[in-house]
């Protein structure tokens, strides 16, 4: 990670969540590790309530640095956090 990026978390939204949030990426500035709940509180400052409802729906999964995780989890400056609605391929 470059030092330029290391003070922020990059948050990605895919598919139906991108539509709910009306953006595919947000950057959240942080100075040290934060819990997922703290990250959600920061997102809440920038997103409408309907978007927050979509992001916290039961079937939404989270990936940190492209690996699925189960909360609780701490995220670090430089991490990439993604909100994933239910997937299907094939």
């Amino acid at each position, binding site marked *: 990670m470059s030092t330029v990026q290391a003070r922020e978390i990059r948050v990605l939204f895919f598919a*139906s969540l991108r539509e709910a949030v009306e953006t595919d990426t947000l950057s959240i500035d942080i100075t040290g590790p934060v819990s997922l709940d703290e990250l959600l509180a920061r997102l809440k400052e920038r997103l409408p309530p309907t978007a927050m409802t979509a992001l916290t729906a039961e079937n939404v999964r989270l*990936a940190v640095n492209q690996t699925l995780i189960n909360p609780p989890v701490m995220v670090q400056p430089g991490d990439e956090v993604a909100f994933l609605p239910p997937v299907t*391929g094939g």
Partner: protein
Amino acid sequence: MTSNSPACVVQVRITEADFDAGEELQSLYARAPGDLGAVATFVGLVRDLAGDEPVSTLHLEHYPGMTERSIEAIVERAGERWPLLDVLVVHRVGPLAPRAQIVYVQTASSHRDAAFAAAEFIMDYLKTDAVFWKRESGPSGERWVESTAADRQRRGAWDGSDGAV
């Protein structure tokens, strides 16, 4: 793979371009090591209908990097269960018309039972675990597609679970 198995060559390709099964098979024959005897393949196509609704376009979206790894993890699990020589998964993304090829799974082994089982296993897990999203457009609008309960049951049947996530 166990230490007794020859290394299985795995390729995963996410692409907007179409694919040609004949070309992929010829490449396999040229590169495949050892005692190749059986190749099972599967092609999934965009269906004309979703339920009773006509489909005009299917849009496929992925998460570059994570999607490839989610498929590699599925193939690795297949390689632990069956003696495979070579596996190729090609998955298209972007807008696709009805009858377009979406996905190609090609599993090579010495024997047909391993090739068939691995191809079916990989397809079942692609439905439930691969990181893609699908949006169907039709005359009555757009909707996001999810894996079905039947898909999750088929996936679960491989490990004896009920497929509940």
